[in-house]
């Protein structure tokens, strides 16, 4: 279910045409309208599962379970009522928000200085460092789950939101460093030299020269880290229990082998997708800039 979140944001990004400022750099004088149609078609294709989920969430359980599906079935808010009626819904959402926001802030605090040291003032053998960071992602997370679980049991960190924050930070850090590095590499060296010549110190340079250029990149990185943490299921499922369960773990609890549950799960999935969608829309300008900056390279 959580997998629908990125497709929604992708759809949002697709649906919103690139800004004029970006188009100006394009060598094409008049874009072929067919491309616009194609873009909308692809956008719609990505959005359809999410829209279907929203529609199903508004149906009654019996209508949600019929085959062929009934498009015009009467609408109801029962699914949402049962989601918010559950005493575990708010704690799960709050846990998810805590884990995602705190880990994203930590990742930014750690990855920006690291990226600075790997691009603007590259340290010796910076490419080795980059490769090492990438290599930490080689191990499939599923292979680390058992050792992590045993570690958590012996240290008493099981079912603690702090453990998830630490793991999400570690999980997203390599990606964030890579992303931030490519964004900071966009900052022209001439601008830095000019700032230095004008007598700006490090802090001043960072604030007035680097930050404005890197802002879209920071936003894009933050959003990606937030999305990854928000929708993470495997670690949360294995390492939390009664207290620290996150929203994706709570989502799965609606599934039952006896009785109908599709509408409830869809309602829950819609609610859980909303924060990511909202964050995506809020950061849309920066995001399109930021993501295409990275893509151009």
């Amino acid at each position, binding site marked *: 279910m959580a997998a629908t979140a990125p497709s929604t944001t992708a759809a949002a990004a697709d649906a919103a045409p690139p800004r004029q400022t970006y188009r100006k750099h394009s060598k094409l004088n008049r874009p072929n309208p067919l491309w616009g149609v194609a873009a909308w078609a692809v956008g719609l294709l990505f959005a359809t599962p999410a829209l279907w989920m929203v529609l199903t969430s508004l149906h009654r359980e019996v209508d949600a379970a019929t085959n062929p599906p009934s498009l015009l079935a009467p609408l109801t808010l029962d699914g949402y009522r049962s989601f918010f009626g559950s005493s575990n819904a708010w704690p799960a959402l709050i846990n998810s928000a805590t884990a995602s926001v705190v880990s994203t802030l930590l990742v930014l605090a750690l990855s920006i200085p*690291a990226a600075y040291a790997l691009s603007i003032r590259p340290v010796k*053998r910076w490419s080795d*460092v980059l490769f090492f960071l990438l290599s930490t992602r080689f191990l499939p997370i599923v292979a680390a789950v058992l050792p992590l679980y045993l570690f958590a049991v012996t240290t*008493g960190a*099981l079912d603690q939101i702090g*453990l998830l924050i630490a793991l999400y930070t570690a999980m997203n850090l390599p990606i964030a460093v890579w992303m931030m590095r490519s964004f900071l590499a966009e900052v022209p060296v001439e601008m830095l030299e000019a700032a230095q010549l004008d007598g700006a110190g490090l802090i001043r340079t960072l604030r007035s020269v680097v930050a404005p250029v890197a802002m879209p990149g920071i936003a894009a990185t933050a959003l990606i880290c937030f999305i990854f943490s928000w929708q993470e299921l495997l670690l949360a499922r294995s390492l939390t*229990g009664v207290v620290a369960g996150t929203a994706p773990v709570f989502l799965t609890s609606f599934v039952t082998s006896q009785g109908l549950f599709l509408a409830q799960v869809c309602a829950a999935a819609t609610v859980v997708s909303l924060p990511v969608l909202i964050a995506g829309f809020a950061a849309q300008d920066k995001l399109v800039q930021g993501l295409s900056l990275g893509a151009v390279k």
Partner: protein
Amino acid sequence: MTARRRAPLALAALSTVALASTACGGAGGGGGGGGGGSTDGTADSISVIMVNNPQMEDLQQLTAEHFTEETGIEVQFTVQPENDVRALIAQDFSQQAAQYDVATISNYEVPFFSENSWLAPLSDYAEQDADFAQDDILEPISAGLTGSDGEIYAEPFYGESSFLMYRTDLFEQAGLTMPEQPTWQEVADLAAQIDDPNGTRGICLRGLPGWGQVFAPLTTVVNTFGGTWFDADWNAQVNSPEFVEATQFYVDLVQQHGEAGAAQAGFTECLNAMTQGGTAMWYDATSAAGSLEAEGSPVAGSIGYAPAPVVETESAGWIYSWAWGIQAASEKQDAAWEFISWASSQEYEELVGAEIGWSSVPAGKRASTYENEEYLEVAGAFAEATEAAISSANPNDPGVQPRPAPGIQFVAIPEFADLATTISQDISSNIAGQGTVQESLDRGQEAAQAVADNYK
């Protein structure tokens, strides 16, 4: 330069350690056991993990008002679908991490969970708690929840056996009668006579892969044909003539007179087929009867119930019960007993009857349920057949030969779930018309012997 390069990594490592240690602090303050329900530090809160079935949803609804209010014990529920809940419980209990004080386990888990000392013994609690009336629990149910040391390790929430359901109206139309205790051959003949390939089929049998799907009814057929998974000395018997004959019979019957798409049909699909008039007979769980006789069901009132068909044994029905076990490492066993003795009590059944409806009562565990007038009014059609089916089952001696481990439709060892699920995929293909039963079971024999060798 080197120092600067490493700084971010060092920072990451540091923050990880720092966070992990604050996490430790939190758990320590909670009073051991690795957090979980212990976070508020009082014994007045227990955590319960349970499978997401309708009866458990009712329980969740009733707990605050009728249990917490009376006892002051708060209950935190974690609910997950069946496969996930089994995995989570096995994980937590095997490590004795005590995130959960109470868990829904079944007569499949109790034998090896208790053998591994993962469960708290409950005999003393049950003895001292006269109101609980342990004697009232149906014998085959409590036998399945008792360890090899004779201690009770779980108390049942609801129980079921298996029986044969058939459409009395269709049988009457066709001039057929169901014998009082049918044999499988008789059932096959009846299926052939009543089968209408373009309409109502003869019988519905599960064909969906899974140890709890096709192999639940199939293993009861194997038992009564004289077969077994393992003999008493842990020799696998999966390609023995009896096992092959029983499986071949099952596959033939469902291919010739069974439901369409049988290889993908499980409990739910057969329930739909029976409810919508797609099949004249159905051999499955006694708990299905409640749905068939429910208000609004088109077949309510026209279903007959016969004992599980037999061949060589006197009875063949399975036993399954969802039950409450307490984790051995739990520090709140007294409070946990308060909860499970309430949830498994006759009083709770009456509460469900009054608040939610008698058809939702978690039945199939207590003799008193079947003497309750109000329950019989709703469940009269199948109550007697259900109780008879449960009472006639013997989980410790379900076949013609002694067994190395308890269980009727399963063998209560942890490896069985994987083993039977793997073989069931081949059987399911056989039902779909691919390969032969002999080939499937020859492969199964090898896998089964590999498992059995661990126990020799």
